[in-house]
């Protein structure tokens, strides 16, 4: 056992939020060490060359919610942030399709083929959601106050939010109330009539969540996905050149620029707690590092039930963390392809392959997929959000070859009989068969297949139960409740132990926000 030099802060986990926190602390002059368990940085935002020449966005695959101020303040464009536009969403149907593109006229025409009314409503829906996004922004950008025993600064923050809410228009208030309480299906039914359009839009209300489009609360998840902006354009989704791992690497380069040390293959065994204070960490190999504070980028279960002893925590808090809902609901299938998939509804190469391809023909399709999961099976006909990274960035695959990223829902963590190799491959087959219904050539062009179940995500990435958001984005787990009441401001019951992962406010996605706000909270406390 050796004790090495003392750091101002140690960050556990080199995921994008941990790296963001490290970069912000470094920027403020702190000496920071980031410890990553794996050989590669990024956590769930990682690019790996699983098969030679084919780079997979193994888990997380698109970027929209990255905060613009984080990009600016950490100088991410300088360190390799290059977001390419994802231009369209294609919903293949039997012998037909629904296509939405970056062009308003084209989108109008394509939706009008199915419903003229919806085509017109769609023109209003975007701006309306943009207004709601603006209405919610201040909540997302506020460090969640302690709602039980607010400090003076908490009161200030609450007052600011009150004033903000008083400034909202009655329309904003109406939509906000609905989005906070309704199911995405009910909410969309108030606007649209064409089922595949509604189903595809509702799909963003179920991603990463153990809910169906008809479950109350799913509308909020949809809103969460609507709040992204790239270059000032609300709801714009982008693909990072080199995959999402390159976003993590850009943040890592920024952190190093600000003086952070980053170690990979350095799994942390425990946080060293002395007299109720975190004073350093012990690695699995026995090395110890001391520091003035320890920040966990892991999910709340890992942060509190694994990294520290329960005896160092108040028992009611332990109960809250144990009750924190973190059910995994999705799987990921990454394919290396010999050629482009050929969709029956829109044959050949074309702009439609430069965007997302959504397998969401109807509410029933999604809801039945959810039903399977409710009773402990993976969906027989799953919902999928597919992109072809190599079409956007040819360097993702050897020349002429392609990679396909398939986000698949539902795949419950608690599957009947547990996950095993047979079940994983059966799940992979189901995914390929589902794609084959719309692009029959898929089976002939697969060179390699990587299938990740929630159990795999837990094992490989340390995501408890394979939940991609470090805990579900349901109302009782947001803002002042994320991950637990009184401890939603990035602090923990252990002094000098902080949290900065997606399990904290404002939640999951590649936002940089939890990492940024945790760092700002810490720096504020140090003043």
């Amino acid at each position, binding site marked *: 056992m050796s004790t090495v030099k003392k750091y101002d802060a140690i960050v556990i986990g080199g995921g994008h939020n941990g790296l963001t926190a490290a970069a912000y602390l470094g920027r403020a002059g702190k000496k920071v060490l980031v410890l990553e368990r794996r050989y590669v940085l990024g956590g769930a935002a990682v690019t790996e060359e699983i098969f030679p020449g084919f780079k997979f966005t193994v888990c997380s695959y698109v970027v929209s919610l990255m905060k613009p101020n984080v990009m600016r303040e950490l100088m991410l464009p300088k360190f390799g942030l290059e977001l390419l536009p994802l231009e369209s969403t294609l919903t293949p149907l039997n012998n037909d399709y629904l296509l939405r593109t970056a*062009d308003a*006229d*084209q989108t*109008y*025409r394509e939706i*009008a083929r199915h419903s*003229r*009314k919806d*085509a*017109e*409503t769609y*023109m*209003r829906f975007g*701006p309306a959601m*943009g*207004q709601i996004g603006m209405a919610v922004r201040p909540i997302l950008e506020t460090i969640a106050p302690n709602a039980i025993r607010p400090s003076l600064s908490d009161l200030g923050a609450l007052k600011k939010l009150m004033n903000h809410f008083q400034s909202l*228009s009655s329309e904003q208030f109406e939509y906000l109330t609905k989005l906070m309480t309704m199911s995405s299906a009910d909410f969309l039914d108030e606007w649209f009539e064409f089922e595949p359009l509604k189903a595809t839009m509702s799909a963003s209300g179920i991603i990463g969540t153990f809910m169906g489009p008809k479950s109350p609360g799913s509308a909020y998840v949809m809103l969460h996905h609507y709040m992204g902006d790239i270059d000032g354009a609300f709801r714009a989704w982008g693909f990072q050149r080199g995959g999402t791992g390159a976003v993590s690497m850009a943040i890592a380069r920024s952190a190093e620029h600000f003086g952070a040390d980053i170690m990979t293959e350095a799994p942390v065994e425990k946080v060293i707690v002395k007299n109720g204070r975190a004073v350093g960490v012990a690695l699995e190999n026995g090395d110890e590092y001391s520091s003035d504070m320890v920040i966990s980028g892991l999910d709340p279960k890992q942060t509190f039930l694994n990294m520290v002893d329960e005896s160092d925590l108040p028992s009611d808090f332990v109960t809250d963390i144990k009750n924190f809902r973190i059910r995994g609901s999705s799987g990921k299938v990454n394919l290396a392809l010999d050629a482009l998939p050929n969709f029956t509804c829109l044959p050949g190469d074309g*702009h439609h392959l430069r965007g997302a391809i959504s397998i969401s023909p109807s509410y029933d399709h999604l809801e039945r997929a959810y039903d399977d999961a409710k009773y402990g099976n993976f969906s027989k006909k799953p919902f999928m959000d597919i992109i072809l990274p190599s079409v956007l960035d040819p360097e993702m695959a050897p020349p002429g070859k392609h990679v396909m990223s398939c986000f698949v829902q539902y795949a419950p963590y608690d599957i009947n009989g547990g996950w095993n190799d047979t079940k994983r491959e059966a799940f992979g087959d189901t995914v390929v068969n589902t794609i084959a219904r719309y692009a029959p050539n898929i089976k002939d062009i697969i060179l390699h297949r990587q299938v990740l179940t929630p159990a795999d995500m837990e094992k490989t990435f340390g995501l408890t139960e394979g939940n991609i958001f470090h805990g579900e984005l349901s109302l009782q787990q947001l803002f002042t409740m994320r991950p637990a009441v009184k401890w939603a401001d990035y602090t923990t019951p252990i002094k000098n132990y902080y949290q900065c992962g997606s399990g904290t406010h404002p939640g999951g996605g590649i936002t940089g926000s939890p990492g940024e706000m945790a760092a700002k909270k810490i720096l504020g406390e140090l003043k």
Partner: protein
Amino acid sequence: MTYGNQFTAETQLNLSPFFERTSQLNESQEWRRWSGYLAATNYELTHENEYFAIRTKAALLDITPLYKYIIEGPDAQRFLDRLVTRNIQICKVGQVMYTPWCDEMGKVIDDGTVQRLSENKFRITSAEPNLEWIETNSAGMDLSISDDSKTTASLALQGPNSRDVLNAVASDSLDNLKFFWMMDTHFGDISVSISRTGYTGDLGYEIWMNPDDAIAVWDLLLEKGKPYGITPTGLHALDMARIEAGLILLDVDYISSRHAIVESRKSSPFELGLGWAVKMKKKDFIGKKALEAEKLKGVEWEFVGIEIEWDPFEKLHRDVGLAPGLPCTAWRTSTPLYRGNKQVGYATSGTWSPILKKYIALAHVKAEYAKENTQLDFELKVEHFRKLTPAQIVPTPFFDPERKRACPQ
């Protein structure tokens, strides 16, 4: 001289039924987008000849991209009276009315023409899709609504010779067709409707036909119109003419209240110079209450014509050694207007008027500064530097020839 005419390209845009001809005639291959259609910006390498065709000859424009809806049934008139601000009850069969329509807050959604095709059948044109609004507001009424945007093709024939061209083609004389009336006639064996309407403020007509007849109609007009100087004309020329005529353009001079993101972007008809088209005596229509309240309270903004004074404008250019830089195409950049040091308005579109030899613009001005002859300061850049130059508020239309309304004696 031609440099080959086999030009082809893929497009994701809609093509009008006239495209087969217009694409061949468009020597500049300059196109604009209009409601998702490819529409000629100008056919020749510059638009000047096309502009003068509108004012001195006969300009032929493909206006198919307009949105069109047919409203038919026993309640059609009652419904339209509820929808729009004009009085449709007094609109006779064969008559056309220009009108805006509003939301419940009295803010303008769109503007267009209502044609009374028969007692119970109307066509309404609009700049943007309005089907959803029309359907929503017709609930419970005995009528049918159909989207006529693609089932009817249309051409505008505008200019002093337009009547002569039509008289040479149509089986009925156009001599007695009055301004804002329409008639059915034939070009050979092709049925068409002709309305005496347009977007140029000149003598002019709009021809409504089955898209299957589009090419035949186009060819006939070009052939018979040749001695009268018929000229395929693009949107550059039209934009200049419509400013001279003082006619507003959605998304340029105002924003539809249906998708204005903030309240301040919305305009009432009074704020767009369309108070004359709001018939307060009508029993009820969408937005009436709000408009009554606005009238009582006083209108905040007015929409006016301004004329940029020549001498100071010229001097600003002379001072830096330049001849006056005139906008020979219409501009659409919001441009500040000041009174003293205070901004009191903004011009939304403007152009040099070659027929009037004046620099004119359309502007939103705070009501208290919107009286005729008020002098304001217009912002412009002269050789990269911002300057102010005097502009007068003048009545519109800037250009209003007698022939627009007159019939031959």
